[in-house]
């Protein structure tokens, strides 16, 4: 592997990393010396000098961000209003969170019988749902709750105003 190869791999890793990429992490993936990774970071930094994208040092690692000079252009893009209504899957997920909160992704998936990652994500994105700490126990999974935004959209003053759920009946009791 040449230095150029390594630089390109690091470039790809930075873009794909879910968190700012530390030199330790990159060194681990590439199985090279962390100091060498630092040198590669520097090379990338100068490569992106004067571009619309910049390599930013943050939280002990690096990530690509847009150059601050172009912030106002990004603002214009950011004002994009998205009109797509929630998918039926997301709406069902929201209903479950509303009545079962605080609730974990696993619990939601158990009730719905399907993976609910994208449904939960789209609720988080639209700020109808937020994290509410972690559940004690194995894996300490994240708990979810509804937000103030949720109340606003449904015209509710508080969660108490949600329609009462039917008393759960044991079908064998009837």
């Amino acid at each position, binding site marked *: 592997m040449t230095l150029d190869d390594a630089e390109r791999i690091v470039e790809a890793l930075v873009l794909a990393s879910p968190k700012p990429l530390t030199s330790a992490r990159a060194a681990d993936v590439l199985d090279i010396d962390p100091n060498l990774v630092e040198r590669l970071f520097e090379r990338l930094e100068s490569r992106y000098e004067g571009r619309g994208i910049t390599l930013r040092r943050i939280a002990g690692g690096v990530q690509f961000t847009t150059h601050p000079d172009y912030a106002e252009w990004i603002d214009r893009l950011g004002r994009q209003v998205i009109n797509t209504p929630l998918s039926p899957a997301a*709406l069902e997920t929201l209903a479950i969170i509303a009545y079962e909160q605080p609730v974990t992704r696993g619990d939601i998936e158990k009730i719905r019988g399907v993976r609910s990652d994208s449904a939960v994500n789209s609720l988080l994105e639209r700020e109808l749902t937020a994290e509410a700490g972690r559940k004690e126990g194995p894996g300490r999974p994240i708990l979810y709750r509804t937000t103030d935004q949720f109340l606003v959209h449904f015209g509710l003053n508080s969660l108490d105003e949600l329609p009462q759920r039917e008393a759960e009946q044991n079908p064998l009791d009837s």
Partner: protein
Amino acid sequence: MDYQIHIDVFDGPFDLLLDLIDRQEVDIWDIPIAAIAEQFLQYIRSLQERDLVVSGDFLVMASTLLQIKARMLLPARASDDEENLEEDPRDELVERLLEYRFFRTVSDHLAEREEGAARFFPPLPAKETAIRPPVYSNPVGDVSPATLRRLYETAKAAFLDNEQRTSDTIQRVVSLAECAVNIRQVIAERGECRFIDLLLQRTRPYIIASFLVVLEMIRHGEIIAVQHKDFGDIFVSSPAKGDRDHDLGRRRAHC
């Protein structure tokens, strides 16, 4: 010809049918329908012998094949009108098969593309770049809190149902005799009740078993069953009680 079928898992009747045709290396426009129908039935039988569930779709296809086979045995009707050519009874099936085969080709193509596309990694949207999150205009639209409740109740009910169904797989086979004992007891105690109330467990095997027992008991005149409207509840009662309580003219369950 004796034909050995491997117990492959087929996605559906068309999947199986195409496989049989491919193995025979015959022209899709000239399917030897008698042979193919026989192999199709053999496959279903082999499933049944292994106590595997045969979905209704396979049974429907089997009957279609037999129907075509029967129609092909009939002598072609002499037509007065020369232009009115007798249609080949296999045509409709072949057209559906070709359509299905096309989509299967496409799905292979999609699977390949999926693999290729999975090699491109975009940055994750959650990452804290200069990205401004988009504004969502009223994401819930005209959904009311009541709708929300309905969605929740429905999901929850399906879940409870499902949970019981999953536990079936590890349960033993339901005994018809036990069902019969239970049903006689409930009828004796209560005189009349809904079919659904006869169930000790709301699991699919138990429901089917109870239904079979009810049919058998009706045949023997032990009980009668009445359904007041389509898809409505079925009421089961002892004959004496039933005659008193139900007007004539109401729909009787036929069996």
